[in-house]
């Protein structure tokens, strides 16, 4: 297939042209988190002819992903997201090369992976990874296109672009209580599509060097009321220096429990915050309970919790039905209700 023919409709644009298309072909973009945001971004970047795309995610395709991650189909459920994404995107554009990272980003691998890319696209769903991406991009002087979603709302900005503001300049730190993910609180399927495609748009503009990049401004989209705001913010050298000087780490907030007499079962994933520090605490993520249920004592009351109380309820139903547990109590309202302030 003729390389330029394929992209005729975008090379016709005088700002892009054959020259811009060549820049896209030579670009290396890493997508961290191949989920609600990462999937649509990956689809448009591959279709647009970005020459090399890195796909990083540790997760497998779940049926509940399909309402928003429309890169995936029913037949893909259970398979590694990065492998499926590479397969599907290669069919979309065989001229693009892909590197798959079927792993979780951490302080030990982040620099080695990021160094091979020009732009990082953040499609992650948790704060510790967002701060890790920010700090690594500050150290390596690379821009990243950040975005996150909540129910019907999305936030989007290009961070660390040509000495522009960083994620920490917008949100220097976070409390534990606002950790939340789509699994617990819900999200309208089209929302990450809109936001992820906008991330791809900013990525293409930075590669071709056209237009105004969304740096120093946060786009705040509300599809429920269909309103949009652009919030201006500035680079704060103190926050940038902090990111440069601190050791790279996945910052996890930890705290004690309110009632130290009780025994707890945490069914959240290992990265969810806050982590509880307590001697009688068992930590088994929901999807591992089928294999690891023998670790749970049956001779005393166990308080089961997650982030909001929804997954823990599911966990209890599963353990009761499949393994006859009768000593489990759900912590309604989630982790927030049992931490010591």
């Amino acid at each position: 297939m003729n390389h330029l023919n394929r992209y005729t409709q975008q090379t016709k644009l005088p700002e892009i042209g054959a020259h811009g298309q060549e820049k896209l072909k030579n670009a290396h973009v890493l997508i961290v988190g191949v989920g609600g945001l990462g999937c649509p971004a990956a689809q448009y970047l591959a279709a647009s002819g970005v020459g090399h795309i890195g796909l990083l995610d540790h997760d497998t395709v779940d049926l509940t992903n399909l309402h928003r991650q429309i890169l995936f189909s029913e037949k893909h459920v259970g398979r590694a997201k990065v492998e499926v994404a590479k397969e599907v995107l290669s069919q979309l554009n065989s001229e693009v090369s892909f590197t798959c990272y079927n792993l979780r980003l951490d302080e030990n691998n982040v620099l080695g992976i990021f160094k091979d890319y020009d732009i990082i696209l953040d499609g992650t769903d948790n704060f510790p990874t967002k701060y890790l991406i920010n700090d690594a991009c500050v150290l390596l002087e690379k821009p990243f296109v950040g975005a996150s979603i909540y129910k019907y709302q999305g936030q989007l900005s290009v961070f660390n672009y040509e000495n522009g503001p960083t994620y920490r300049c917008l949100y220097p730190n976070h409390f534990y209580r606002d950790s939340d993910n789509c699994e617990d609180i819900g999200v309208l399927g089209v929302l990450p599509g809109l936001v992820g495609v906008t991330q791809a748009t900013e990525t293409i503009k930075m590669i071709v060097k056209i237009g105004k990049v969304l740096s120093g401004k946060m786009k705040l989209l509300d599809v429920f009321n269909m309103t949009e705001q652009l919030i201006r913010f500035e680079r704060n050298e103190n926050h940038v220096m902090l990111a440069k000087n601190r050791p790279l780490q996945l910052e996890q907030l930890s705290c004690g429990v309110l009632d130290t007499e009780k025994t707890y079962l945490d069914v959240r994933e290992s990265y969810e915050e806050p982590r509880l520090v307590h001697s009688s605490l068992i930590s088994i993520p929901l999807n591992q309970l089928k294999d690891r249920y023998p670790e749970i004592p049956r001779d005393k009351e166990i308080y089961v919790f997650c982030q909001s109380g929804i997954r823990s309820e599911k966990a209890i139903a599963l353990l009761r039905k499949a393994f006859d547990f009768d000593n489990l109590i759900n912590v309604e309202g989630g982790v927030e209700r049992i931490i010591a302030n």
Partner: protein
Amino acid sequence: MSITIKYFGAIEDVTGIAEESVSLEQISSLEELKEHCLARYNDIKNLSFRLAVNQSLTDNANLKEGDEVAFLPPFAGG
């Protein structure tokens, strides 16, 4: 003095409304408005957020008639 306040994300869940207009005689600074809102919607204090006045992020500012203040929590979802 009439100020428009916009709430987003989990803060909107606390307030139950996306936007409101308040008329406050005794308030002249962003800090005072924040205290007023935290007293009114107690659970906001459990959330992290930044404030913007007229679409500009700021920690302190003097408010004037017609200003728009936004409560902006970070989102984690992806």
